[in-house]
């Protein structure tokens, strides 16, 4: 494994990787700064570009968009109090107050340094731990992989909605969509409804673009406002730069939040939003002057920003070692890996070890580029927030269509539009679509690993899973306990809210 790590360095010696990382970071920051647009949208729409590049260029390009997007969300959160992405909601608690006090520039630079530090440290932790974890995953077989996938889907579904019911429905809908086409175990075609276009199943790219791009375009036209943000940002009044002593005062907060984000990132489904809130509240609890939080405190920026970016690296651990995406972005990344002929899972570090390490190391270098680029781009992107929808939305629409057409089949446009319109309706009914996409990409591994497990079980699946395979039984039992706990908790909450006055 260490040899693979060393060989990975030699794959890093190419300029195009860093050019595309820079492009990705720039696009990500721009999209993240727009409150109506999400990082997921940018990654989904630009996914086809990565297919046409080598893995060592295309995948870092997507990672660049993600890293830049999460930070970009903090620009509007700090300057006008509107979070560009969900991950920057906690940044709005102190950001606008700092801007009003004439410390907007300090807040933006604190967000940048915290984001880069959180991301960098978590990437280094990920690189250190992923090799041993990958070796451990080689010891497990199909029953364990199946059980871990099911446990992950239960977690993802339960955190995606308050009761977990809608998350569960979305997950099962995703599985249903994933089962369309040719059955991997028997070769029979199913659920095609007589349409030849569905023989190979629903293609991933039109589905991803349909789920993430079309609903955002439709949601953006709900309001006829010409811009996403109407407030004028005067960058000449954002104050002085961040001083060293101010940064030094927040180092403990940054490190604490980085560890929080790293821990949360490993758990599928929890993600950046939760990490940012936990990072913020931990910073407040540990502060000697918690009363200043919410009134313009630099630690209130450092806490959530370090935590939300620290999630990026560890989310790759379940993706690369088990093939389980923990959120929307990693589900799209899984698609990118598959398109490049790599199937993340227990074998990938054995088969493509140097490439995997090279990719992870490129993410570390991306953070350095991110730091320098961020300092230069904060100002122009703060002004770009006021760009007119009339230019942005048609461009996104055209790019979405190009993305769907990149499969080379014009019928995929129909799939993208149909999925997009249905996704908009589901989102209006408060369904989170992350479990749908994640379970869609996991449908084939679920079917394959369960089929194999049942064959090994020789007609006694219960004994095989619960007596013969303790790790598998642990995850299955943990999943059941989690569902019971969620149900009981919802019942107690329901009774409490009924008995509460008013």
């Amino acid at each position: 494994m260490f040899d693979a790590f060393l060989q990975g360095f030699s794959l890093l010696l190419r300029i195009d990787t860093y050019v595309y990382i820079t492009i990705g970071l720039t696009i990500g920051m721009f999209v993240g700064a727009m409150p109506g647009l999400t990082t997921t949208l940018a990654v989904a729409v630009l996914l086809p570009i990565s297919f046409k590049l080598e893995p060592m260029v295309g995948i870092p390009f997507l990672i660049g968009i993600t890293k830049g997007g999460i930070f970009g969300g903090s620009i509007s959160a700090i300057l006008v109090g509107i979070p560009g992405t969900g991950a920057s909601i906690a940044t709005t608690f102190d950001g606008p107050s700092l801007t009003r006090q004439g410390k907007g520039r300090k807040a933006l630079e604190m967000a940048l340094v915290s984001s880069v530090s959180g991301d960098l440290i978590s990437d280094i932790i990920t690189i250190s731990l992923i090799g041993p974890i990958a070796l451990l995953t080689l010891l497990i077989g199909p029953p364990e992989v199946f059980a871990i996938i099911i446990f992950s889907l239960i977690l993802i579904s339960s955190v995606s909605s308050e009761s977990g019911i809608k998350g569960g429905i979305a997950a099962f809908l995703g599985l249903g969509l994933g089962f369309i086409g040719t059955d991997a175990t028997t070769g029979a075609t199913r659920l095609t409804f007589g349409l030849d276009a569905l023989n190979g199943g629903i293609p991933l790219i039109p589905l991803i673009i349909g789920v993430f791009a079309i609903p955002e375009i439709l949601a953006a036209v709900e309001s006829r406002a010409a811009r996403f943000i109407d407030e004028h940002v005067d960058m000449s009044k954002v104050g002085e730069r961040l001083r060293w002593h101010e940064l030094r005062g927040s180092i403990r907060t940054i490190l604490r939040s980085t560890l929080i984000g790293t821990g949360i990132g490993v758990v599928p489904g929890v993600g950046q939003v939760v990490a940012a809130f936990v990072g913020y509240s931990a910073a407040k609890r540990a502060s000697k002057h918690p009363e200043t939080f919410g009134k313009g405190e630099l630690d209130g920026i450092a806490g959530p920003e370090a935590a939300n970016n620290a999630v990026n690296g560890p989310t790759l651990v379940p993706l690369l070692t088990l093939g389980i995406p923990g959120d929307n972005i990693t589900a799209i990344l899984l698609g990118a890996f598959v398109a490049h002929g790599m199937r993340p899972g227990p074998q990938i570090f054995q088969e493509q070890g140097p490439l995997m390490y090279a990719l992870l190391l490129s993410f570390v270098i991306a953070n350095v580029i991110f730091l320098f680029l961020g300092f230069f781009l904060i100002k122009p992107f703060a002004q770009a927030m006021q760009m007119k929808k009339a230019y942005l939305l048609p461009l996104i629409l055209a790019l979405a269509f190009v993305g769907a057409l990149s499969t080379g089949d014009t019928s995929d446009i129909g799939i993208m539009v149909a999925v997009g319109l249905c996704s908009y309706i589901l989102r209006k009914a408060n369904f989170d679509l992350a479990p749908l996409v994640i379970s869609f990409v996991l449908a084939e591994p679920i079917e394959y690993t369960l089929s194999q497990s049942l064959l090994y079980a020789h007609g006694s699946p219960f004994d095989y899973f619960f007596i013969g395979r303790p790790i598998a039984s642990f995850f299955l039992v943990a999943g059941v306990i989690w569902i019971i706990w969620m149900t009981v908790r919802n019942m107690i909450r329901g009774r409490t809210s009924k008995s509460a006055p008013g």
Partner: protein
Amino acid sequence: MEESPIGQEGPAAARLELGIAILIALGAGYLAVAMPTFVDEGGIQQAQDFLRLSPVFFPRLSFGLTSLISIILVIRIMKTLPGRETRTLTLDGKKYLNVLIMSVLIVIYALMLPFFGYGFATLLAVAVTTYFLGMRAWLPLLAFSLVTPVLTRFIFERLLAISLPLSRYDPLAEFEQELMGFLAGIFF
């Protein structure tokens, strides 16, 4: 990834949730029951037996559970649905009219593509969408509508080798190809 509690956004949202939950419950239930008829070839006899590993097994299990959970959601929404006096539908008409118009534009754009090709379909779609979104200055509108398809086609087709469809009408297709050839001649 938090959803808002059922009915919190008013009775209209709760009714939409209820409608969707019923639709999913019925659709998934039907697919679970009728799954053997949706297998095009092979394995149908075994598919009748639920416990056998067949192309029917996993989809049936999945759709069956979808239907079951959707029924639980339907019951939950029915219990929390606001009272009769608040059951009037209060959708913001103008807001959703915009969404409807945009949806129609997207569908028309998709339908135009095979006939007009990427370039001309995108030119028309971008022009109409930009106008719909409030751009009334003709020069920027025209320039943006022309530049978007040309630039995207050039970047994706010439630089990234992503093939985009040409018009079925030869003169349009030839014009687009000549334009791309001209641009390629400038840059390469």
